[in-house]
C-alpha cells in the first residue's frame, strides 16, 4: 500500500486537476453553453470532498510526502473540506440567471484556483508555497476580468494583477533572503528555528525575510498595510469571484502562515511577535473605523475583512496550540459569514455597485434574503448564539490566556464599532417593515418591487446563514474536535 499512499493521500487534489483539465477539454470538443460543465464541477468538488473525508478516516496516510514538500494532516483535511464547501457555494452562486458569464473556462480556472488553495495549505517549502499562491492568483486575475461587459471588472482585475504580482515578487525576494539566512526553505516544523542557533546576523536577516514573506501573505489576507487593493477590487470586480477572492484565499493564507510560523514563533521572535501585534491592532482599528464611513456595501465588507484579519492575527501574536484551534474555528465561521454577506450583496445588485440605500426595506422586498443577510452579519459581528460569537470568544480567551488582555480589550472595543455598521445595514433592512420609513436623512430611494433571486444563489445564501447558526449551536463542539 505504501507506494500507493501518495496517490491516495492526494486523491482530492488529483480529482481537482483532472476535473479542471477535463472541463476545459470537454468544452474544446463540445463548445456548448456552460450547462454541463457546472454539474461536472460540482460533482468533482463533491468527489474531492469525499476523498478528503476518506483520507481523514485513514490517519496512516497522514505525513510528509515528496521529500518534505507537502504534508497531509488534520489541518489539510480541515482546509480541503472548507475549500470544497465554499467553492461549491461560489459555483452555485455563479450559476446566475444569464449564464453568460459561467463558461467552461470559468469553471476550469475556478477548479485550478481551488487546487492552488489546498496546495498552499499542504506546502512545507516556501517555493511550493509561492507556486501555490500563483496557482491561486492567476486564475483569479482571469476570472475577475472575465465579465468584460462589466465596466469595473477589467479595471479591478488589472489593479489586482499589478499589486498581486508586485506582492508575490516581494515575497519571492523574502524567500531568497530566507534561503540565505536559514540555508533551507523547508518549514516542516516551522521555518524559523531557535534564534540562538542562528546567531545575531542571520536572525536579523531572517527577520527581514519574515517581513517580506508576511508582505506577500498579508496581501492575500488583506492585513492592514497590504490591504489597500481590496476595497477598489471588491467594489469593481464581478460578484461571485469577488465573494470567492474575499473569502477563500484569506483562509488558505492564514493556514499557510500557521504552518510557516509554527506554534513557537511568537515566543522565540519578539520582533516578529510585535510586528504581528501592531499589524493586528492596526487592521482591527483601521478596518472597523473606515468601514463605518462606507456607503458601498462591498467596500464596507472589504474593510470588515481587513478587521477580521486583524482578529485572526491575534492567534499568531499569542501563539500556542489553543490559539491555533481557536483560529481554525474562527476561519470557518468567518468564511461562511463573509461569503454569505457578499452573495446577498450580489443578489441585491447583480453586477452593479450596491449602496446601503439599496438595502433599505429589503425585508419587505425579500424576507429570506434579508434574513440571510441579517444572520451572516450578526455572526460576523459576533453576537451569540451564532457561530461568530464562539469564534471570537475563543480567540479573545486565547489572547487573555496569553497575557494580552489589552489586545482582547482593543478587539472587543473594535467589535463594538463593527456592530455599529453591521447594525446600520440590519436596521435599514428591517426599519420600514411596519411603518413606511419617513424619508430620513438619506432620503430612502423608492422601495422597488420584490427582488427575484435566482434559485441556486438563494440556496447558497441560505446555506451560509444555516452554517452560521449551526456553527453557533452545535458547531461549538466542533471547536473541540477541530483541535
Amino acid at each position, binding site marked *: 500500500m505504501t507506494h500507493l499512499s501518495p496517490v491516495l493521500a492526494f486523491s482530492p487534489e488529483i480529482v481537482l486537476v483532472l476535473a479542471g483539465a477535463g472541463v476545459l477539454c470537454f468544452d474544446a470538443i463540445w463548445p456548448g453553453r456552460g450547462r454541463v460543465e457546472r454539474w461536472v464541477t460540482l460533482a468533482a468538488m463533491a468527489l474531492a470532498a469525499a476523498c478528503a473525508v476518506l483520507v481523514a478516516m485513514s490517519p496512516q496516510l497522514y505525513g510528509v510526502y515528496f521529500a518534505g514538500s507537502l504534508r497531509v494532516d488534520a489541518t489539510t483535511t480541515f482546509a480541503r473540506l472548507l475549500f470544497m464547501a465554499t467553492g461549491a457555494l461560489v459555483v452555485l452562486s455563479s450559476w446566475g440567471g444569464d449564464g453568460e458569464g459561467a463558461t467552461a473556462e470559468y469553471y476550469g480556472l475556478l477548479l485550478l484556483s481551488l487546487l492552488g488553495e489546498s496546495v498552499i495549505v499542504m506546502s512545507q517549502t516556501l517555493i511550493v508555497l509561492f507556486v501555490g499562491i500563483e496557482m491561486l492568483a492567476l486564475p483569479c486575475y482571469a476570472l475577475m476580468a472575465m465579465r468584460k461587459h462589466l465596466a469595473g471588472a477589467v479595471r479591478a482585475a488589472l489593479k489586482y494583477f499589478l499589486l498581486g504580482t508586485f506582492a508575490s515578487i516581494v515575497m519571492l525576494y523574502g524567500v531568497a533572503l530566507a534561503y540565505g539566512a536559514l540555508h533551507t526553505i523547508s518549514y516542516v516544523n516551522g521555518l524559523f528555528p531557535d534564534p540562538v542557533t542562528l546567531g545575531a546576523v542571520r536572525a536579523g536577516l531572517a527577520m527581514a525575510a519574515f517581513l517580506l514573506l508576511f508582505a506577500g501573505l498579508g496581501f492575500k489576507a488583506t492585513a492592514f498595510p497590504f490591504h489597500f487593493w481590496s476595497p477598489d477590487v471588491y467594489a469593481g470586480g464581478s460578484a461571485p469571484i469577488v465573494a470567492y477572492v474575499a473569502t477563500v484565499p484569506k483562509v488558505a493564507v492564514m493556514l499557510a502562515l500557521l504552518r510557516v510560523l509554527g506554534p513557537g514563533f511568537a515566543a522565540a521572535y519578539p520582533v516578529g511577535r510585535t510586528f504581528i501585534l501592531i499589524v493586528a491592532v492596526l487592521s482591527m482599528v483601521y478596518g472597523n473605523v473606515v468601514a463605518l464611513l462606507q456607503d458601498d456595501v462591498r467596500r464596507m465588507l472589504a474593510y470588515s475583512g481587513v478587521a477580521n484579519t486583524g482578529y485572526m492575527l491575534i492567534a499568531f501574536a499569542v501563539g500556542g496550540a489553543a490559539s491555533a484551534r481557536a483560529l481554525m474555528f474562527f476561519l470557518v465561521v468567518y468564511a461562511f459569514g463573509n461569503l454569505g454577506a457578499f452573495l446577498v450583496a450580489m443578489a441585491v445588485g447583480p453586477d452593479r455597485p450596491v449602496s446601503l440605500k439599496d438595502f433599505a426595506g429589503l425585508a419587505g422586498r425579500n424576507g429570506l434574503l434579508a434574513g440571510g443577510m441579517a444572520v451572516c452579519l450578526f455572526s460576523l459581528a459576533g453576537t451569540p448564539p451564532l457561530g461568530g460569537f464562539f469564534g471570537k470568544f475563543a480567540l479573545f480567551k486565547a489572547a487573555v490566556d496569553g497575557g494580552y488582555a489589552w489586545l482582547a480589550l482593543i478587539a472587543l472595543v473594535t467589535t463594538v464599532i463593527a456592530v*455599529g455598521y453591521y447594525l446600520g445595514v440590519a436596521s435599514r433592512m428591517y426599519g420600514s417593515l411596519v411603518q413606511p420609513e419617513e424619508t430620513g436623512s438619506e432620503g430612502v430611494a423608492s422601495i422597488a418591487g420584490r427582488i427575484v433571486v435566482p434559485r441556486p444563489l438563494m440556496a447558497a445564501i441560505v446555506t451560509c446563514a444555516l452554517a452560521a447558526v449551526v456553527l453557533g449551536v452545535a458547531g461549538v463542539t466542533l471547536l473541540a474536535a477541530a483541535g
Partner: protein
Amino acid sequence: MTPTLTAFLVPALPAAAALFLAVFGRRMGERSSHVAIGALALSLIASVSLLVGAFGHEGPLVHATVPWAVVGGVPIEFGLFVDGLSASVLVMVAAVATMVFVYATGYMKGDARYPWFFTVFSLFTACMFGVVTSSSLLELMLFWEVMGLCSFLLIGYYFERPDARRAAFKAFITTRIGDMGLLLAVALLLGRYKTVDIPTLLAELAKEPKAFMWMICALLFAAAVSKSAQFPMYIWLPDAMAGPTPVSGLLHSATMVAAGVFLVCRAYPLFVGADFLPMIAWPGIFTALYGAVLALTETDIKRTLAYSTMSQLGYMMVALGTGGLVAAVFHLITHGFFKSLLFLSAGSVIHGTKTQDIREMRGVGKTMPITGACFLIGALALSGIPPLAGFFSKDAVLASLLGATTVQPVFGGTLLVVGLMTAVLSAFYMFRVYFGVFRGPGRKYHESPRAMIAPMVALAGVTVVAGAINLPGLRVSLAGMLEPGVVEHAFPWLMAVSACAAGAGVYIAWESTRLRRALHGTGPIPPNLQRLYGGVFLRPVFAVSRFLRELNLDYILENLVVAPVLWLCGLASRLDPDVLYTAVFVNGVGRVAASLAAIDVTVVDGAVMAVGRAGLGVARGSGFVDTRGIDGAVDGVAGGTMALGRGLKRLQTGVTANYALFMIVFGVAIFYVAWWLAR
C-alpha cells in the same frame, strides 16, 4: 365577644363596607350609604364596649399581633393595640363619623358619584380606626398613608374643578413630605431594634442615648406637623376646604388632623424621655395664635373654620408640649365634637344660602333657626364659655400651661399669656361669624332637610354634655384612664379668668359687628367703642390680620418647597448625560478639529503630505457630525470615531502606485517600530 375580636371589628367593618361598595356600589346608587352607615354604627357600638372594657383595666386592653413579613431575618408583625387613649379617641371618631355619614346622605343627595363618595369615606374611616388601634409603627404608617390617599381622593372629589385638583395635589404632597419623617423613623427603628411593636419600642428607646431619641422624635414630630397642619406645613388645610363639607366635617376637624396629635400622644413617653417637649410647645402656640389671627379677617366661612381648626390643634400641641397629655386628649375629643358640629352647620348654611362668603349671608338665623342654634352652641363651646365642653377642655389646656409656668416661669408664662390672648381671639372670630351671619335682618332661606339637621342636633347635645367626661371628682374620668393615680390639681381662679376672656371676646365681636354695620351705614355708631377698645385692641389686631392676608404666607411657603424642586429638575435635565455627551464630545471635538484644520500645514503636497494627513486622521473641516453610516446612532463618541475614519479613509486614493507605495512604507515603518519596541 372577646375585646380582641371587637377591637378587630372596629376597623374591619368600615373596610369591609368600603370593599363591598367598591364592587357593588354603582348598582346600589343612593342605598349604598345605608351599608356604610350600618357598618359604622356597629363599629361605634364596638368602640363604646371597648371604652367600657378599657376603663380601669391596667395595661393595654388588647395587644394581639400576626406575622406580616420577614425582612432581613426580622419578623414584622401587624396587630391591634387598644388602651385607654385609643379607646377614648376611638369612641369620639366613631361617634363623629356616624353623625357626619348621616349628614352626608343629605348633603350629597343627587350627586353623580354618590356610591364612590361613600366607598372612599368608609375606607377613610377604616384607616383612621386602623391608625388608632395599630400595634406596630409600620402598620400605623400604612394606615396613615392610605388615609393620605383617601384625603387626596376626597378633597379632589369635585375633580372637574381645577382648584379642587390643585388642593388635593397640594394636600397629598405636603403630607407626603411629612410622612417621609415617619418612613425614616420606622426604617431606622426596624433596622436597629429588629421590631416595630410600639410598646416594646418605647421600652427599648428609653435606654437609648438622648441624641438618637431626639432624632426619632424629630422625625415623628415632622409627620405629626404635616398631618395636623401645624406651622409651617399648614398650607394645605385652608385649600382643603375645596372638598365637600362632610369631608371637611370629618377629616379636617375631628379625625385626620387629629391623627398627628394622636401619634405624639401614642409615643408620648419617648417625647418626654428625649425632653423634646419645648420643641412641640413653641410651634404649637405660634400656630394657635397665627391661626386665630388669620381667621379674623377670613371671608369664607369654611376657611375660617379651617384656620380655627389649625389654631385649636395648636392648643393641643402646646398642651402636649407642657406635659398635659390628658388636657390634650380631652381637648382633642371635645374639639372633635364641636368643630364637626360647626362644619356641619356651616355646611347647612352653605346648602341653604348657596354661597360660602359670610359677607353675603345676612340674618340666616331667622329662617334657619335650628342651624343657627347648633352653630351658636358650637361657637360657645369653641370660645370656651362654660358649661360647654370647650370651656373645660380649654381650661385643662390652660391649666397645664399654668403648671408649666410653676416649673419654668418664663417659658410657661409666655405660653399662658399667648394662650389667653388666643382664647379671646377665638371667641372673637367665632362670634364675629355668628353675629355677622345669623343676627340682623336677612333674606328668606329655608331650613336644610331633616337628614342634615338630625346629626347636627345630636352633635350639639353631645357638645353640651362632653365637658363632663373629665370632671375632676368623677369616678369614671378621662384622666383616670390615661394617667391613673396622677392627681389633677385644678385652679379655680384660672377657670374664672378663661371664662372672662371668652366673654370679652364675645362682647368685642358683638361690638365690632355693630361697628361694621355702622360703617356700612346699616346701624348706629356706638360712641364708647371707638374710644375705649378700638384704639387699644381692635385696630392693631385687624391691621396685623389684614397684613398677613395680603402677605399670603401660604403662597410663599408653598414656593419655598416648589422653587428648589423646579431648580433641581432643571439642573437634572441639563445634566442629562445625553446632553452632556453632545456638548462635550460632539461640539467640543468638532471645535478642536476645526481649529486644527485651520492651521492646515501644506508642506510639499507630495509623499509627506499624504502620510501626514493619514497619520493624524484630522477631520479636515468637513461637517463634523456627518451622520453617514449608522445614521448618527451612537452619539458623541461616534462623532469622534467618524472623524478618525474620515481621516484614515483619505489613504484610499485609488492610485495603484500609491497602494504599492503605502504597502512598502507602512510595512517597513511597522517593522522598524516592532524592531525598536522589541529590542
